[in-house]
């Protein structure tokens, strides 16, 4: 069963992460080293505990609001009664929601070695790969009334080629699993993005409705270094 998920790399993590009395829950992802995400194959309920009778947390979706194949970040794994369960980070409100899903409802775990870190204090975006910083750029973040939510998230989809109608967002936008805590009625549900801009002169600073803005050259450079499924930490 272990090999279905992550293989030997996970096994090495277990010894360090799992205390003896809770050895059944194994940590899967380690941002900046190797993290894992998985595409959703079946729209099942995520539950508060690894049990089919546990409280429902949220239902997985096969497609994102932007019509891409939906995915979740995999945090932990365990086995109960011979069935493998995975704790995943869910792209739902409130931010930071996680839930347990049977491993069978997800596709095979996909490794990702990058980790995007956003600092709302220093207005810096940093991409770490294999433990090393490979990208750094100044950014704009949410204004005080619409702050960029802090916490652990992941990159959920990528939008590009949308033309002049979206030129405000620059040439490319990443969709994250984060949602604005203030703009709940925003079209699309108030998703937080990481994107380019038509107003690069405002960067760095608190300039947005909650999204992370970069200069267009930076977002295009980031695209080459970071793929969908990358964990995102906002501090």
């Amino acid at each position, binding site marked *: 069963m272990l090999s279905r998920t992550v293989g030997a790399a996970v096994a090495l993590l277990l010894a360090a992460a799992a205390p003896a009395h809770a050895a059944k829950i194994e940590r899967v992802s380690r941002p900046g080293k190797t993290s894992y995400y998985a595409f959703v194959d079946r729209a099942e309920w995520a539950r508060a505990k690894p049990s089919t009778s546990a409280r429902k947390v949220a239902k997985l979706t096969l497609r994102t609001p932007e019509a*891409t*194949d939906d995915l979740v970040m995999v945090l932990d794994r365990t086995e109960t009664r011979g069935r493998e369960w995975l704790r995943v980070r869910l792209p739902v409100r409130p931010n930071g929601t996680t839930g347990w899903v049977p491993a069978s409802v997800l596709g*095979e775990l996909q490794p990702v070695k990058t980790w995007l870190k956003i600092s709302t204090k220093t207005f810096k975006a940093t991409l770490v790969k294999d433990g090393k910083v490979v990208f750094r750029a100044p950014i704009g973040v949410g204004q005080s009334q619409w702050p960029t939510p802090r916490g652990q998230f992941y990159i959920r989809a990528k*939008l590009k080629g949308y033309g002049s109608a979206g030129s*405000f967002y620059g040439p490319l936008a990443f969709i994250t699993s984060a949602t604005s805590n203030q703009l709940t009625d925003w079209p*699309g549900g108030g998703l937080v993005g990481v994107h380019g801009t038509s107003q690069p002169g405002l960067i760095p600073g608190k300039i947005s409705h909650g*999204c992370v803005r970069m200069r267009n050259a930076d977002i295009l450079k980031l695209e080459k270094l970071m793929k969908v499924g990358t964990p995102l930490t906002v501090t």
Partner: protein
Amino acid sequence: MRRALLMTTMALVGVLVTATPASAHRNPANCDANQLDVDLIRDKNLVKNGDVINYSVDVDNLGTRACDVSGITVVMRVPRPDGLPFGPSTIVVGNQSYAAQDPLRSFGPFPYTVNANPGVSRLEAQVIVERGVLHDNNVHSEVNIHKTIGSIIPVPGIEVDKTADIKAGLAPQNVTYTFRVYNRTAPPVTLDNVTLTDNLCPNVVGPVAGDTNPTDNRLQPDEVWEYRCTMPHGVGLFNNTATACAELILNGGPMPKVCDTDDETVQFTPPVPQAGVRPAQAQQQRCTLSTPSGLRVRAGERTTIRVQTREVDAGSRVTITLPGGRTVSARTNSKGLATLRVTAPRSGTARIKVAECSAVERLTVRQARRTVSRQVPRVTG
């Protein structure tokens, strides 16, 4: 035609013309030959015990050179149980004369119920002309004629030949048995009501080939019917027997059913090779590959494929060739399992091969997941 020739063999045993004392003259004046013709005819060619053969006798004295014949007696003898023409006799014509150019006269039918000894395949009847006088000269000749005619008792025959596609190896195995059924009847005659059974393999299917007219269930002499049956075998020695049977329907009734059997033995050894090496005594017939797991392969997505092989050495190389030509290899463990982690660069067909096998499995790499959209962002901005 050939059968007709065989069955209608008529042998003129002898026409004996010997000198007799002179007491008459040649008649007609210009005649010079014995052209008395006696034919024995039967209404059935192929028979079995209990059938009735109706014999008849035709007599004429036609021919441009025919001489008168007088005082002839024609006797017919039916077959004896041993098949020879020495059974009970019947006087067909008694002390009669046949003048030259006398037309054909038929006598009979003379029924005979077949009652042959076991093993007798040919029955002969005979007609004999005795004590006739041929008016062919001043010194007349004596006329004696013997003719025989045969009927055939066919010997129905069937043959089954059974083979297994795997005769030995590592258990478990799905073995497909092939049965070939031949018509060995002599002379060649069609067989009816063919059946085929096997004492171990319960679901014999067929004929799957060789039956030129599948609707009549009749095995022609030149046909070879093929049946098949597949069954799983575990560890052990398995000797199973196929039995093919058929009937020969002749003159409205069946002859005794004939059957033939053929054995086939297969042997399979425990499935886990000791020390990762297959047993030396195992006769490896083929390399098999069970359906690999992890077949939901998508381009650009890392996928683990487990390939379960059988009848290959531990450590054998399993190779998957991805669309575009890139290959990924892994070796089988002591249980024949090889694990490959692949990321197909694009969609298409991937092929999995095991070192000792030809292409054994194919899988389709589907299109990559959609992670990029051209929709205008609706993020908070």
